[in-house]
Structure formats: C-alpha cells, structure tokens
C-alpha cells in the first residue's frame, strides 16, 4: 500500500526582547551561568510575573505576519510539571485562550505554492538550561542547571497536521524564519536555539482521510535535520506498517550522527499538566485599535517582496528569492536599483559575486553602501575597467568599504588603451615570442589571440583587447 505522511509542527521562537517576559533580567546570550537571575527566575516564593509589553507586541506582530486572528482576550495558564529546568514547577503558557488563532503561511514548491494552515500561536516562558555530565541525559550521573534562559519570551506556533514530507517541513521552516526575520521579532537561529521545532508524524493510506498513530519527533536542531528526520521517520513507520506491525505512540529522538530516530521509552500514563488559568496575571486584553496599529507597522513580507521584485525589476523567481531572502538584502538591491537601470545585471551581481564576497569577508549587507556597487557597475559599463578588475574591486570594496573609483585611481587599475603605453608592450611580446609572430604572419589567426593574451598577462588584464588587436595587426 502507498502511504502518505501527515505532519504537524510545533515551533518555538525566542522573541528578541531586552528583558525577560515576566521580569527585568537580561535575555543576553552567553552570560555566566545563573547571573541573569532574579528571585522570580529562581522561583522564590512571593515573586509575581510582570508581563513585558514588548514581548506581547512582538508576539502580536509575528501572529499578524502569519495571518492569524489575534485575540482581543487571551489568558495565561499554568502548565504544571516538575523538572529541574522549571523553577516554579509550572510554565506560564497559554492553553484554551491563546494569543492568536488560525493563520497560514504560503510556501513555494516547484509544483506551485502551498498554503500551510496554522492552529494557533501563543506566548510562554522559556525554561532554564540543563548541562549533563557525560555524553547524554540517560547516562549522566548528575546535571547542572542554569536559569539564565528561564523566562526568555517564547512564541509557540502550531501548524495544522497538513505537511506531507520532510522537504515541505523544511521549506515551511525556512519561509517561517525568513518571515520572522522580516518582522524583526526574533533572530531565529536554529543553531542557537532561538528557533526550535518538534514534529508529529503519522501515516495514512494515500488519499485516505483517517489519521494513523503518530509519533513525536524531537531534537531537530537544523533545517537539514528536520528534513532528514521526518523522511526517516516516515520510512520507519512505513516499514512497520508494511510488515503488518503497528506504530506505537511515542516520542522519538533524532540522532543526527546516526541519521536515525530513536524511540524513547514513554513513562506510564500520559503527561497530565493540570493546566489552569494563571491567577497571578489578569487576562490579556488587547484593543482592536492596538492590533490594527501593529498591523500598520508590519513591513512588506517576503512573499509580497518577491512578487514586487519580479514585477517591478523583471527578476526571475530565483533572483527574487535570493535577493528577498532578507529584508536588508532586498533594501540594498532596491536602493541600488534606484540609480542603476540595468536591474537584471544588478541582480546578477548582487546574488552572485556580492553575496559570495560578503560571506568571504564575514560581513553583513548593511555594512555595504549600495552607491558603491552602482559606482562599480557604471565604471564597468562605461568600459573604464574590465570584468576581472571589477571583481577584484568588489572584493576590496566589501572588505574595506572603499570607493571603487578611488581604488582604481590609487592602484592604477584603469584600462590601458593608449598607443604610447601599449606599443612597447606589443614590441616586447613579439620579440619574446618569435614563433607565434611567425605563425600569425603565415595566416594562423589563433596566434593573434595568444599574443594578445601575453600582453593581457603583463598588464594584469587592464589592456584594451581591441586596441591590442589593432596594434598587432599593424606590426605584423
């Protein structure tokens, strides 16, 4: 039988506020353990949660960007369980009354675009961090607890179970990351844990609408891991079903080094979190006008941006996708495009050489002035420099931020086209390569290219090849 996978994602995004969601402790990454802690972070009795206005604002912005219905009334709830990273033995989260309901995100697949619907998005607090002695949690004799992360604001986004493959899940997450970066509410780094993803996966006969037994897949620490783990898990379940077996509801752990999901033993009885409304916090009431005002503040989002780049500048899908990958890149492009009319050429340089040089130099696009790239391309278009020089200049420009025109002047990198300068070089090359000169005289056209190449090498590509052709023909 053919099976299809039914996948739902639960995504946690750390919101990039300065202070924690319920207290004034810093959210800065990488501080000494347990130094960003106040009585509240330690769960000392008598401390109360003080809701961070910006955390709510960022949550609402993200929800609006995801087309969710932001609720005028949402209620914080306690999720009760004991674990050393949870200082109060409950996590303040939202249950029956989340910040936002519904919503969707469209992803682009080769076969067309697809809308992935969302169930909800809600605010909650991050737990602390556990460091296990030894290799893993299972074998560790003890663990160390750091509460610096406890209380960092999180937005949990839950999709409907309608993703069908690891690849779709990955594309969804990549588009989600792009969107959230556009809104500026999170730095969304999977490697640093500010974007995390758990997945539920079950199989069903292709075309059927019933749902099979699902497993939860955890420890997905990169986009690649998401894709690989879900594909692996789908195959694992398919093998079980094909063999007449039954999938057991369980939590699986993705082992990235073995490239396999490992079924974790479940504790007897399902978790019982005893959710109830958080009595320490009044319901979160947001006025419609507040929500509308935040909607106004939303920037143009990636999908609209890509479309506009295609329509306005004539870019193709791939160019638009690369340039609209970040808001900053797109801003750079559009700023440059204002004063530089050959948009396709501009796009070509930006998506190719410029991005390559940025990566090499470890720089961000915001550090480069669009005017400099325009200056460079104009010099190239006017024939003041040739292509290899332009690439060399771009590298230098990215590294130092220097103006290409100045660089040309300073280093004498301009094109050499004067007869006085070129004639002695032509003489020299003919003298040094008598055989080639003779061959040309005998009518071998190829020999000319060889001789021109020699001069080009001497001038490091700066000589004007047309002028050289003329001079060689004259001499020989």
């Amino acid at each position, binding site marked *: 039988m053919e099976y299809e996978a039914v996948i739902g994602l639960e995504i946690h995004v750390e919101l990039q506020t300065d202070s924690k969601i319920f207290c004034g402790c810093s959210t800065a990454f990488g501080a000494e353990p347990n130094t960003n802690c106040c009585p509240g972070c330690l769960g000392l009795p008598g401390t109360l949660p003080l809701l961070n206005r910006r955390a709510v604002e960022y949550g609402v912005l993200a929800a609006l960007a995801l087309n969710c219905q932001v609720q005028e009334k949402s209620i914080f709830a306690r999720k009760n369980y004991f674990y050393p990273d949870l200082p109060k033995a409950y996590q303040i989260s939202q249950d029956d009354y989340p910040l936002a309901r519904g919503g969707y995100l469209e992803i682009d697949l080769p076969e067309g675009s697809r809308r992935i619907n969302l169930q909800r998005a809600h605010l909650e607090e991050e737990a602390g961090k556990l460091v296990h002695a030894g290799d893993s949690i299972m074998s560790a004799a003890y663990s160390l607890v750091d509460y610096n992360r406890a209380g960092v604001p999180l937005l949990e986004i839950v999709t409907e179970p309608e993703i069908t493959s690891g690849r779709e899940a990955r594309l969804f997450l990549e588009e989600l990351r792009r969107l959230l970066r556009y809104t500026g509410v999170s730095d969304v780094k999977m490697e640093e844990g500010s974007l995390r993803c758990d997945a539920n996966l079950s199989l069903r006969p292709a075309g059927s609408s019933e749902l099979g037994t699902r497993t939860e897949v955890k420890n997905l620490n990169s986009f690649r891991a998401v894709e690989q783990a879900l594909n692996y898990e789908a195959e694992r379940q398919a093998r079980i079903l094909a063999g007449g077996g039954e999938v057991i509801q369980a939590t699986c752990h993705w082992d990235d080094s073995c490239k396999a999901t490992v079924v974790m033993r479940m504790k007897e009885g399902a978790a019982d979190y005893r959710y109830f409304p958080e009595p320490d916090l009044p*319901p979160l009431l947001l006025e419609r006008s507040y929500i509308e005002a935040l909607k106004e503040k939303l920037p143009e989002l990636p999908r609209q941006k890509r479309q506009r780049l295609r329509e306005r500048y004539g870019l193709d899908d791939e160019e638009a996708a690369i340039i609209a990958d970040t808001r900053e890149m797109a801003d750079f492009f559009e700023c440059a495009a204002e004063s530089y009319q050959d948009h396709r050429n501009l796009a070509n340089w930006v998506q190719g050489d410029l991005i390559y040089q940025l990566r090499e130099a470890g720089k961000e696009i915001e550090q480069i002035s669009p005017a400099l790239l325009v200056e460079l391309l104009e010099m190239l278009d006017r024939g003041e420099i040739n292509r290899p020089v332009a690439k060399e200049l771009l590298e230098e420009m990215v590294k130092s931020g220097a103006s290409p025109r100045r660089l040309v002047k300073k280093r004498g990198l301009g094109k050499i086209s004067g007869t006085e300068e070129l004639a002695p070089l032509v003489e020299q090359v003919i003298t040094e390569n008598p055989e080639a000169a003779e061959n040309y005289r005998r009518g071998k056209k190829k020999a000319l290219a060889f001789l021109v190449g020699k001069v080009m090498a001497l001038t490091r590509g700066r000589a004007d090849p047309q002028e050289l052709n003329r001079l060689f023909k004259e001499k020989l």
Partner: protein
Amino acid sequence: MAADEAIGEREMDELAELACLYLEPAEKKMLNRRLNALMELLGKIGEVETGGVEPDIHPGILPPRFREDEVEPSLSPGRVFQNSAHRSDSFFRVPSIAGEGPGGA
C-alpha cells in the same frame, strides 16, 4: 458521590507522583481516606445550576498591567545560591534525571 469519583489506591499513587510527594504507606492510606471524605463534601458543588455562567479566574476583571522592556539588575551570585545546598560552582546541581518528566517547552 458516585463510586467512580472516589480516589482509589492507584489514583493515590498517580496523585503522589504528579505532586512529587513521597508518602509512607500508612500516611498514604490515611490521606486517601481524608481526601475521599473531602471530595464527597466538595462534590456538592455540582448541584449548583451554573448554565451559561462564565468562570471567574479573579474576583472581577482587572486591567492588564505591563512592564516596559527594560533590563533591571539581577541578583548577585551570593544571593542566587544563598539558600541552596546544591550549588556546584556557578550552577545548581541535581542528581540523574534519566527517564524523568516531560521536560522542556
């Protein structure tokens, strides 16, 4: 109280586990008895007609109160560990957590 609402031995164990309470067997029995007596008393709440009534979380509706996103000083390490017997350098140290709890958000 319907018989199925009484807390049996098995549920007592579950409750003790959920509440993270070690109970001596005799203590567990005694608490179980008292708990069931209480549940019987409190079960009467079901007799009150509450159709269409919104549950009260607080006494009345309070306006939401926000804190501005400003960093305030944290506790000094001395204060952080002042009351703990489980300090290990700059961490709190716990014994093995293998196979425990749900873990994490």
